[in-house]
Structures are given as C-alpha cells and as structure tokens.
C-alpha cells in the first residue's frame, strides 16, 4: 500500500532523526563536561529538532523538493483516491481536506476534554480527577482548541477555497503549503503525549516562572508550539502571496469575496505576530533546559517579559481566530440574502482596521498583572477603539440581511448565529477592557464565558457554517438539511444556555483553572455542566450527518446554492486544475438581483447562473 509506505517511511526517518539527535546531544553534553549526559528535556529537545527534520523529509519533502537543492532530480508521483491524503501532496484541495479532517478530530477530542472538565466541575470537591489530572486536561483542552481555532479555518477552508474563489490554479508556493500541513502531525502527537510524559500544569498560557519550574511535560509542549508557530507563519506567508499575486484577471481588490478578504488579513496577522508565540516559548525553553534567566527575578529576569511577548502574539491571534469566522459569515450572508452586499468597502475597512489595531492592545490581558500604571490608559483606549472596526462587520451583516430574501439553510443559520453570538462576546469584551471592571473580572469565569462566546460562538459556529456551505463542493455530495438544522438549533441553544449562564459564577467570584470551588456555587455549576453535556451531544448529530452524507449522501450538483462566486462555477468536487477553462472576473460577486450583472466569464461564455431551479433540485435544502 503506497500511503502506508510513505507514512511509515516518514515515521522511520523521524525516529532515526530523533535518536540521532539524542546521541548528538548526549555526546555534546559529555564533551562539555556535564556529569550526566542524559537530561530528558535537553536531550529530547535536540532529538526532536532532528526528528522533525527527519519526519518532513521522510514523508515526501526530500523526494519532491529537497533533492532539487542538491542538484538531484525530484521525483514525480501519481497517486489516486484516498491515498492522496497521506502524501506530501501539493494540491491545495487535498491539503484543505487534510487540515479539515485533522482538526475536526482534534476538535471533537478537545470537546470531550471539555466534557470531562464540566463533569469534574459539576459540584465542588474533587470527584473524578486529582488536581494534576485536572490541570493536564484543562491545558490540553485549551491548547488543542486554540490550535483548532487558529488552524482549522485558515488551513482547511482557506486552503481549499481561497485559490478557487480568486480563480487560481493553486497556492503561490504549493510545496511550502504541503510542508505547513505536515508540520502539524508532530504537534498533535506531542500534545497528545503530554499526559504520559508528566502532564501539564500551566494552562494554555504557560506563564513563567511556573512553566520554568514545573516538572511536567512543559518542554514538549513548548516544542509543539514552536513547530505549530512555524507552520502558521509559512501558511500565512503563502496566503498573502497567493491573494496578492494569483488573482484571476479582473479579480480586483474591490471584487474580492469577503472570505478572501478575511483570509488576507488573517494571513498578515499570522505572518507578523506568530513569531511572538514562538519567541516566548523559546525563552521558556531556554530557561528550562539551558539554565538561562529570562524570567528569574533573582538573576535580573522578569516574569512580565513573557506576558508582554506572549500577548503580543496571542491577542492578534484572537483575530486570527475570529476573522475567518467573520469572513465566512459575511460570505454566506452575502449569498443567502440574495441581494447586493451592503457596505462592502466599510466591511473591508473593518478588516483592515482590525489588522492595524490588533498589535497595539495586548496589555489588556495584563491589567492586573502588575504592569506599571502608566500603561493602563493607552491600552484601555486602544482596546475600546477596536470595537469600531469590528462594528463595521456588524454593519455589513445587518445591512445585507435587511430587506433581503433570506434563504434560511443550515449554513445561513450558522452564519447568522455568528453575528448574534459575537455581539454578546464583543460586548462582554468591553467589560473586560474597562480596567475598573476587569480588576474584579480578570481570571474569573466571566472571562471564560467571554472567550467561549467569541471563539465558539464566533469562529466555531462559522466553521460549521462553512462545513455545511462547502460540503457539497468538497465532497460532491449533499448532507441532510433537516439533520443539519436540528444540529444548528440544538447547538445554538445548548451553547447559549451554557455560556451565558457562565458569566454569573464569574461575577460571583469563581475563578478559572480550579478543580474545586466554594460550595456556594454548586447549583449554578451543576446547571452549566448539564447544559454543556447537552451542547456536547449536539455534535453526535453532526458527526452522523456528515459521515453518512460523505459516504452515501445524494450526489450534489455543481451549484446547489446558485451562488455567484467562482468556486461554484466548476464541478463538485473541482478538477485538479480547478477550472476547465481559466476564469475572467467582470463584476462584483454579490450583486444578486441586479439585471445583467455577471461575476465571471469562462472562455467567452458568461457563467451560467440558474436561479430558483437549482435550489428546488437539491431536495431538502429548500425546505426552509
């Protein structure tokens, strides 16, 4: 079996690299006169670097790319069917699916961890886990979900649909794209191994000095994050280049679909700020394994340095998470409102405004961290200014639905829910941005509620909108619309009940990251736990629907939503080269109902735009 050979080959070279690295590091330690050549964290770090190189080379980078550097001829492989997904394949559509399936699985896993968290928190005292286990689960839930939020949309839908939406054949650097993806499996492996290597203790933020002093698997966690950061940076670079240079003729900046705009800005943020995450954890690693003192106050270090560097990335990162959600929501609302997009330029301005401001608000996570007082006012001001560009996204969404003909399919419902949920999450953000209120609310469940509203309510709902919206295009099959709507209402209600309630224990004085809390908060926590189980159960509907539809759902037509953008003007799924004949863009993508308006032409014929007929044909889809 071809796929098996490549993957096991990659694992093999990876392992060889790993042991080689360990040997090198142990020898080095001996050469420099350390009494003990074996130091788990140090040796494994060096081993990991070697192993990582071995892995990506073995999985296919050597054969299809690196041989070139040594003047050798690169090899060409022909693969079929599902085996493509286990190869160093450079087709952006394959990479998109690789990302999506990987991160959907990770999402479900991390969701199950959330269920464990809620089970433990159902009442006070310790029931199922000891404190170490709780902290491990908490840290894993946090970081895996953050990884999902950062990479699932960008890597999945971004890869699959950005080239299609702009009429390109592939990404600007296809091989780099494959590399970005194949850096992910080691990250997932390392993170999932942490429980067996000593667990985690520091939550997803990994604040030193605790993260330097802890005897857990922190070093492995750091290595995973640095790798993940590398993957994000390369991915971001690729998107920026693709969108700048690969647009089809006529696809001017003023005609870019909303999702592409959001990906453009997201990619810039990933490219510019991700280094902060990597740098912060590099410093922690150096403190841990090389005995340095970035964060050791006794030697002149400062723990707050970490927080500045960390949030310098991690605040912009929340926009990496939400912008694709906004982009998908606007994209879908634009198509399913069946009327011209409202305030396109302002929405783009909103995206760009967020890009500009995202890097100057980070210290709002540090209002109570003991930063000098003169830092509070500027960061308070900048943080609240960000609500103005964000508001423009809302303007566009609300203006587009207003007086439209809303075709309330499952993707549209999810898209509208993004707007609804994020309004709540954004407004609670204002409570946190105001220092006088943040002093009490920081590190409480109010913050937990805020960020689940923004991430889950904003991005994860957007991700499901995108899954349903593009499912027929990606798989060539149609999901069951009734089940999808059931999933929507179930998830929507479960989500809002769970997380809206969660604000209250926060105000009442329940802090985050604890396995145990005062008995006075029992009732409310039990309620939250029960509703979160309800929320979790809704995903069973989703999994069932998608798995069944992918395997034997009805065959979808090319354009079941009769949408105007380019991806729908080609077959489902699209051919390897995306379009039979190269597209030319001649008009705005969302001008529904404007007589004579056309978005694209292929060859010499205007793209067909069959109206109502297509919707009726897709069966359940029309039963709004």
């Amino acid at each position: 079996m071809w796929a098996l050979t490549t993957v096991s080959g990659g694992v093999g070279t990876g392992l060889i690299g790993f042991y080689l690295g360990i040997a090198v590091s142990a020898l080095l330690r001996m050469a420099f006169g350390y009494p003990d050549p074996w130091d788990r964290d140090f040796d494994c770090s060096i081993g990991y670097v070697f192993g990582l190189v071995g892995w990506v080379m073995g999985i296919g980078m050597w054969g299809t790319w690196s041989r070139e550097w040594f003047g050798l001829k690169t090899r060409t492989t022909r693969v079929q069917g599902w085996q493509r997904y286990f190869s160093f394949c450079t087709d952006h559509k394959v990479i998109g699916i690789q990302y999506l399936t990987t991160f959907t699985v990770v999402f479900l896993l991390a969701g199950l961890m959330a269920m464990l968290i809620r089970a433990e928190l159902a009442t006070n005292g310790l029931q199922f886990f000891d404190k170490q286990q709780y902290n491990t689960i908490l840290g894993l839930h946090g970081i895996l979900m953050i990884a999902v939020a950062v990479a699932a949309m960008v890597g999945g839908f971004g890869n699959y649909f950005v080239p299609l939406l702009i009429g390109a054949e592939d990404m600007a650097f296809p091989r780099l794209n494959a590399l970005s993806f194949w850096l992910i499996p080691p990250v997932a492996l390392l993170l999932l191994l942490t429980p067996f290597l000593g667990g985690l203790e520091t939550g997803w933020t990994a604040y030193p000095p605790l993260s330097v002093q802890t005897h857990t698997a922190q070093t492995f966690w750091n290595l995973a994050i640095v790798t993940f950061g590398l993957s994000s940076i390369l991915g971001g670079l690729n998107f920026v280049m693709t969108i700048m240079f690969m647009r089809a003729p006529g696809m001017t900046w003023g005609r870019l679909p909303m999702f592409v705009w959001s990906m453009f800005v997201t990619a810039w943020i990933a490219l510019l700020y991700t280094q902060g995450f990597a740098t912060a954890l590099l410093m922690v690693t150096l403190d841990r394994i090389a005995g340095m003192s970035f964060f050791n106050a006794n030697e002149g270090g400062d723990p707050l340095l970490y927080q500045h560097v960390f949030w310098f990335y991690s605040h912009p990162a929340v926009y990496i998470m939400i912008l694709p959600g906004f982009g998908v929501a606007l994209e879908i609302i634009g198509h399913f409102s069946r009327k011209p997009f409202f305030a396109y330029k302002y929405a783009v301005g909103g995206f760009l405004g967020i890009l500009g401001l995202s890097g100057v608000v980070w210290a709002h996570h540090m209002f109570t961290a003991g930063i000098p007082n003169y830092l509070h006012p500027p960061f308070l001001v900048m943080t609240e200014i960000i609500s103005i560009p964000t508001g423009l996204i809302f303007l566009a969404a609300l203006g587009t639905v207003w007086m439209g003909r809303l075709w309330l399919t499952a993707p549209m419902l999810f898209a509208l829910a993004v707007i609804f949920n994020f309004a709540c999450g954004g407004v609670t953000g204002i409570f946190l941005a105001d220092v006088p209120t943040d002093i009490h609310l920081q590190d409480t469940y109010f913050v937990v509620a805020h960020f689940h509203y923004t991430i889950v309510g904003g991005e994860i709902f957007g991700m499901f909108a995108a899954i349903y919206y593009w499912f027929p295009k990606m798989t060539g099959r149609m999901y069951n619309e009734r089940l999808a709507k059931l999933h929507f209402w179930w998830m929507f209600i479960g989500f809002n009940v769970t997380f809206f309630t969660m604000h209250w224990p926060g105000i009442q004085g329940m802090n985050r990251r604890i396995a145990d809390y005062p008995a006075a908060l029992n009732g409310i926590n039990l309620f939250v736990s029960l509703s979160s189980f309800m929320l979790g159960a809704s995903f069973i509907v989703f999994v069932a629907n998608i798995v069944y539809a992918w395997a034997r759902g009805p065959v979808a037509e090319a354009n079941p939503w009769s949408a105007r953008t380019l991806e729908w003007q080609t077959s489902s799924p699209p051919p390897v080269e995306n379009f039979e004949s190269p597209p030319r863009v001649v008009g705005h993508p969302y001008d529904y109902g404007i007589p004579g308006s056309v978005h694209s032409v292929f060859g010499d014929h205007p793209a067909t735009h069959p109206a109502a007929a297509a919707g009726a044909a897709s069966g359940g889809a029309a039963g709004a």
Partner: protein
Amino acid sequence: MAVITFGPPAHDLPNRAQINRVGLWLFFFSEAILFGLLLSARFFLEGIHRAQVNQFLGLIITIILLLSSVSAFTAETAIEHDRRRLASAMLLVTIFLGMVFAVGVGFEWATAEFHRKEAFGTVFFTMTGIHATHVVTGVLMLSLAWAQLRRGKYSSKSHWPISGTVMYWHFVDVVWVFYYPALYLVS
C-alpha cells in the same frame, strides 16, 4: 477518483521570479519580528546596562560580516553577467567570512566573562546564538548554491537560488547592524 500527480510543477507561473522575491521579503518581515522581540527583551530586562564584552573581537567580526555582504553582492552581480568564475570565487569568500564570523562568536562565547545565568548573559547568548544560527544556515545555503553553480546550473537568466541566498545573507547582516550596537556599544 481523481488521479493526482505531484512533484516539480510542470508549467510554472509566468511571474514566478517576482513571487519568489516578494515571498522572501515577507519571510524577512516575519523574521524581523523575532529579532526585534529579542532586541526589545534585551532592553526590557537590562535597560542599557552592559557587561564587559570583548570589544576588539566584536568589532572584528562585525567588519567581517559587513565585508561578506559585499562579496555576496559581488557574487550576485557576477552571475547576472554570466561571470561564473567570479561568482563562484565570491561565494566562496562569503562562505569563508561567514564561517570566520561564526567561529568568532564561538570564541566570544567560550571566553565570555559573564554567565548565561545572569540577565545580560541570557540576552547576550540568546541573541548572538539565534543570529549565529542564521549565519550558519546561510553558510549551508550558500554552499549548496555554490555546489550547483560549479555544476553549471546557473546563468544570467536563471539563478534564483543564488539571489535568494544572497538576499537572505544581506538580511542576516542587517540584523547584526542592529544587534552589534545593542550588545557591544550601548551603556
């Protein structure tokens, strides 16, 4: 199911040269943030305090690195005019100077009067270490490019690997232009 062929692109984009160049610039942009953050960390932790460093050595390796940028530039210009021998010689000079620089940093490390445990040592070793890693990477890439050049792969029309590595070399050089005063001069 579709059959997929992958490997080297069969027909490449017409503007590949431009895409490569801008892409590399973006990469520098991102790297600059890494170097910038470390530089900020240095001032955040230590202000303008500085421990005793080997001024003579610092000056020498700085000059060496600057010179290597000149030779790298000459190599690129040479290949643009199909002067392969000159290009090859200049690449070798660059590689040599780069290695001397790396050895110089190693010597500085071995003889430093401060320990990595102190805050200044921490930032000094990290900044020079990360930078030297880039220099060594650059040396490796230059060597690969040189080997290909020797085998006659490049001409005035097609020499992206040389241009790319030389651009990278300049970038690493510029970083040092900021790091040198921050580590050796201020106080």
